[in-house]
């Protein structure tokens, strides 16, 4: 037994994570416009326009939302809080916004700003990730979500460090002989180590908690460690310490097994819910995990059958189908919850319900647009001319998402201006 009136009283103020959630869609909107303006570039994965679009999503969307979510998850998961949350959030957010804009526009138009933008991004990530890592390292080593987050954060920081190195190369157009090895490691660490491991660790916690499913098994809980091992193995391959086609195929197959194992168990959990009410976030999770399975299939085709030019498909399925879908589902859970939570923590009990902050109807319509965008992006692989249309649907889906989030925030602001009304039993306070 213990009484824990400790330091839990300092859940970060809403403004700290919210600024990340509300600005992230803007980067996806810019990316959609880039796609509409220059669709052909997307089918060439070394095109600077493509690299810019990739980072608008990986940093501007995924990075920003996960930095916001981490601040919020630390107290829930580990009972710890970042010190001076608003100062850290403000600094990190400004650096991330300027850095993402600088990197993406810099790659396309002004190479001179790539270096400073890369450094800003490193600082922006580190300001939240480093203190989070330090706090998590103190905590419980039995908790699989915390273990997974530690691994993901380490890979996130390494990805960004490698990114700074790559950014430097692009800023003075001076590429080392090992450039491609660094790029391959950057991609593997960024996608598998940072994005996948982070989503898996969050899923361990969030799927049983939000959807009342059985927990993930003890074996599943080891995935983050296994993926870390596979990335190290892959690192030895890309730096040609291990060589040969067999090593390459084994490496890719290991990634494929990890992805499909997580996706299948995750999908199964959604069939095992105690109260199977399908809200939009459930569909987002299903779409996300389904896309991850498809990514695995395409990776097999690309590597084993040596099919070239599949990078576009891998990018769409993993980045948009898996990554963006899971984030949208998370946003639709987190924003109503946080708005409600911060109002109720003020001692007011006459507040709107969580549903009121994000009506299901709007979320569902936005999901349909998202789904159509994904299908159109996939068909564009076969009919390149369609990518402009896909880009327009993509743009609309993010505009709609942003509108939904802004509506929720408006309601929060409106409600938070009302005088606190103490509920009946609270008058002793």
């Amino acid at each position, binding site marked *: 037994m213990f009484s824990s009136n400790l330091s839990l009283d300092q859940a970060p103020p809403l403004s700290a994570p919210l600024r990340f959630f509300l600005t992230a869609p803007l980067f996806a909107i810019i990316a959609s416009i880039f796609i509409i303006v220059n669709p052909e570039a997307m089918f060439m994965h070394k095109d600077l326009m493509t690299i810019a679009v990739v980072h608008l999503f990986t940093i501007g969307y995924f990075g920003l939302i996960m930095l916001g979510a981490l601040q919020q998850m630390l107290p829930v998961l580990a009972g710890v809080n970042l010190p001076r949350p608003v100062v850290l959030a403000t600094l990190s957010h400004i650096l991330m916004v300027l850095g993402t804009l600088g990197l993406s526009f810099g790659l396309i138009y002004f190479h001179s700003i790539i270096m400073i933008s890369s450094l800003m991004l490193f600082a922006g990530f580190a300001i939240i990730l480093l203190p989070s890592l330090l706090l998590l390292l103190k905590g419980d080593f039995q908790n699989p979500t915390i273990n997974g987050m530690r691994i993901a954060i380490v890979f996130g920081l390494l990805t960004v460090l490698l990114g700074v190195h790559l950014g430097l190369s692009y800023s003075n157009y001076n590429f080392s002989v090992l450039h491609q090895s660094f790029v391959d490691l950057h991609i593997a660490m960024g996608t598998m180590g940072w994005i996948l491991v982070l989503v898996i660790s969050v899923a361990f916690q969030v799927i049983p908690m939000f959807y*009342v499913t059985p927990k993930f098994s003890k074996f599943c809980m080891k995935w983050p460690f296994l993926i870390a091992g596979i990335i190290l193995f892959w690192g030895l391959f890309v730096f040609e310490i291990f060589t040969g086609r067999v090593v390459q195929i084994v490496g890719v197959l290991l990634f494929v097994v990890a992805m499909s194992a997580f996706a299948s168990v995750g999908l199964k959990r959604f069939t095992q819910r105690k109260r199977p009410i399908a809200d939009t976030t459930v569909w987002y999770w299903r779409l996300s995990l389904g896309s991850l399975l498809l990514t695995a299939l395409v990776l097999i085709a690309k590597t084993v059958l040596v099919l070239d030019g599949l990078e576009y498909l891998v990018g769409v399925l993993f980045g948009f189908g898996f990554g963006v879908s899971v984030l949208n589902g998370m946003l639709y859970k987190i924003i109503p919850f946080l708005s409600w*939570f911060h109002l109720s923590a003020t001692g007011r009990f006459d507040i709107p319900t969580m549903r009121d902050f994000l009506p299901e109807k709007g979320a569902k319509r936005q999901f349909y647009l998202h789904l159509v965008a994904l299908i159109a992006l996939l068909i564009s692989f076969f009919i390149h001319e369609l990518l402009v249309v896909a880009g327009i649907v993509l743009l609309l889906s993010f505009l709609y998402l942003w509108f939904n989030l802004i509506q929720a925030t408006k309601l929060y602001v409106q409600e938070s201006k009302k005088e606190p009304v103490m509920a009946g039993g609270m008058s002793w306070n």
Partner: protein
Amino acid sequence: MNKEIFVDVRELPAPEPLEVMVNTLGELEFGAYIKMHHRQMPNMLFPILTRNGYGYFVQKGEDEVFVYIYIKKDKQIKKELEDVLK
């Protein structure tokens, strides 16, 4: 003790347990306490409790958690809970 308000939120998807608990707090009076049965540590509930003048005790099992909530100024109930939970 028959002044217990028992709330089992184990089967509710997050964040419904929190919503239920906040509503139940309104029913709590001097001389009574709430016993909450949950699947996991309700970390987000604690700040709501402390900010609004409630105290609590936590009993943690392998896969379940019990939280006992009382009105902080109600020293009598606090003492009774302490004695029982020891």
